[in-house]
């Protein structure tokens, strides 16, 4: 049985949405202040959590069909987005190991797709 492309797209989209969740959590952590009231009023944190929840719904719609041996590895694409957003929004530099890891992950995901025949 082949894993449908629609499932793969849903999982990839989920990890894309989730990568923004990470950006907002990081923004939220930077604005973190002591009291509980302050934490509850931290809109960055709240937005991050909502994005994570949304991304998990897309992920689950995706894995409802098809094989986990194909779909779960697709989640690793999230690392690519995370590194790109970290560069764009937090000025975290691209390092040689990040570029190498990124390339390996892309090759890995491509191989998984090749193996889905």
């Amino acid at each position, binding site marked *: 049985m082949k894993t449908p492309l629609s499932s793969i*797209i849903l999982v990839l989209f989920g990890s894309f949405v989730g990568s923004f969740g990470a950006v907002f959590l990081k923004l939220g952590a930077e604005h973190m202040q002591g009291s509980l009231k302050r934490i509850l009023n931290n809109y960055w944190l709240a937005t991050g959590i909502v994005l994570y929840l949304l991304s998990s719904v897309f992920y689950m719609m995706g894995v409802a069909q098809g*094989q986990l041996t194909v779909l779960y590895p697709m989640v*690793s694409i999230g690392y690519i987005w995370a590194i790109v957003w970290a560069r764009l929004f937090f000025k975290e530099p691209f390092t040689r*190991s990040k570029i190498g890891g990124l390339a*390996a992950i892309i090759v*890995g995901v491509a191989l*998984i797709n*090749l193996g889905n025949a």
Partner: protein
Amino acid sequence: MISTTASEVAFDSKAAARRSFLLVFSCTVIGALAQILVKQGTAQLGAHHLHLTLGQVLHRPELFVQFSLDMMTNLKLFIGYCMYGVNTFLMALALKGRELSRLYPIIALTYVWVTILSLFVLPDEHLNFFRTMGIVFIVGGVSVLGLRK
């Protein structure tokens, strides 16, 4: 007064390092088990949720809402979600005062556990040369992400 010698401090930090290693390692196993439950749970959600495409979901938000509501009443999904929660808590404990990037090689093991568990527990799963190499590349890639240079 309690005095701490240098060797005691060294032992202490070694023990702390081992503790966070073990915690993160447990997280990868718990996380993989949660993935299996989530997969089994979504497969139970009913035929009308199958064959959904991203295009449909974005055009018809009610499909998204319906799916989300059905998710909340599924036991396996609920347990899987609780395990995610426990995992997040354990990770926070493990990472206290420690760099996440140095633990990437352990975190990447989740891909291995999910694959092995899928083969044993789920129906219709199989590995082939490309898929196996794909996992190897992904685990390798995630492992090196946190290196300094």
